[in-house]
């Protein structure tokens, strides 16, 4: 099994394959929860691996690089949707069938809080890894999650 936080050397091909096998499911879950679309999530994860591979130079901490790439892509998509959602789509993308109150409460959170919760409670990342993925300071992660939980609690109790 490849340690995603190590360099891909010395056998880049085999290491990348192992990394792909180990990280793909986890990245897909993060992307899926943040985009609510399996085809989109698959595309984002695949693009992340293509980007990793196309850098040509060895990437230190490829696992972190992939996570950051996936989270950034989901964020870009989220911003894109903020504009697109005002225009009716001709064909809706597949979404989960039932939305419970927690789903709705999560969807109402600012995007960064949503991402932080997924990375903490679904992928079990550390504050440092979440900070890397979100592009913020490590000390900010705790406050993002606290604010998110407080908002959720308030929403669920109301």
């Amino acid at each position, binding site marked *: 099994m490849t340690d995603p936080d190590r360099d891909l050397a010395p056998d880049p091909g085999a290491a990348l394959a192992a990394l792909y096998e180990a990280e793909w499911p986890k990245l897909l879950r993060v992307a899926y929860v943040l985009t609510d679309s399996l085809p989109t999530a698959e595309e984002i994860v695949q693009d992340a691996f293509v980007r990793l591979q196309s850098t040509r130079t060895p990437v230190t901490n490829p696992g972190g690089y992939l996570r950051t790439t996936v989270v950034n892509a989901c964020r870009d998509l989220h911003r894109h949707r903020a504009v697109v959602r005002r225009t009716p789509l001709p064909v809706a993308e597949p979404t989960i069938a039932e939305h419970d109150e927690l789903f709705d409460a999560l969807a109402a959170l600012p995007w960064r809080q949503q991402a932080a919760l997924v990375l903490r*409670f679904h992928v079990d990342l550390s504050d440092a890894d979440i900070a890397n993925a979100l592009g913020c300071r490590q000390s900010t992660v705790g406050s993002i999650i606290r604010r998110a939980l407080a908002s959720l609690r308030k929403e669920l109790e109301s």
Partner: protein
Amino acid sequence: MTLDLDERLREHYQQRTNDLPTRGPGLDARPTLMLARAEPSTPSRLRMAVIGSAAAALILGLVVVSSVRSGDDAPATSGGPAALPLEPVLTLPDSPDLGDIPVTVAATEPVDWFRLAPDLDVSWYQPQGETSMLCWRTPVGQDCVEDRDMNTLPLMVPTGGGQLLVITRENADPEQLDLVLDDGTVLTAPMERNDQIGWGLSRFDIPVGRSVSGFGDASLAAANPAEVSGATLPPAADLNEVPVTIAAGPELSYWRWFADLDISERQTTSGDTEFCWRTPVGEGCIEHDFASPKVGLIPTDGATIALAQPAIVPIVPAPSDPNAPRSELGPTPTRVVATLSDGTTAMAELTFGDQFGPGWTRIPTSDGVTVTDARSE
């Protein structure tokens, strides 16, 4: 309560992802991973996003603010992290075409407006079969631009009192926004985020005659804190937080590796990649091939930065298994030996950091002396 919610979240995420596949496509079909390089002519959406943002910054950033100023020559009032928010000088009146919900209307002109600030309304409309349009109006003017996904923002809008409103998508650090002016000055303003549409709004007072050359987070520090003895690069607000490879084209997307070196890896039209750089002494692109004993040389103030990395060498003897790897990374180079234009030779130890692949070193050069040749070993 916290524990309950934590567990509920874990269960919620687990339920939502229960049916997702556990293996990526392709691994069942072949014994080794085959990832294709993206075609340069059809860059992925992600790369397009990078390029689109850069293009938007370039195009919209060239707004010359002086043309809309009222004529006073006040200095910029914002600057630094402690900058206080500016207040609108003029405001828009109440209007019957204002709505509480931002919607895109099928129309040929802006119909429903959404008030984003006391002096800024925005509106979206879409003529049948045409591109959606994003419009703005302030006390000093009104205009519409094509609402092309990511590329529309940031939008820089003049408003009363010579102020400039900058509308952005959610930023990595949404508390403030930095603008870099054409003279290198950095202005900082708080960013107010509209939760309904997720956009940020910052208000700036731009000095007369200055234009905006970049925006973003100018406080982004160099990834490698190594001390730089010469001049450093000015603040830039168009930097990526991680190094990315962008598609072939005129745009670059830099990552600040050192205080005096920004780099941008870009695909070429042939599908290869080139390594572009900018330092206090200039900018350029070099072939992205630093495999030992080759060395990439980048001039900076008072030194030449040399880059090197291990070469990929064939495995000898070649494995009989046709699926087995045929090559491997060679030994890691430890130093660079350089010949200078004054005839002297210099040696410098390579350092391999944890932010980026190639190793680096600095070869000090005095005025007029350049590195004419170098190899790693």
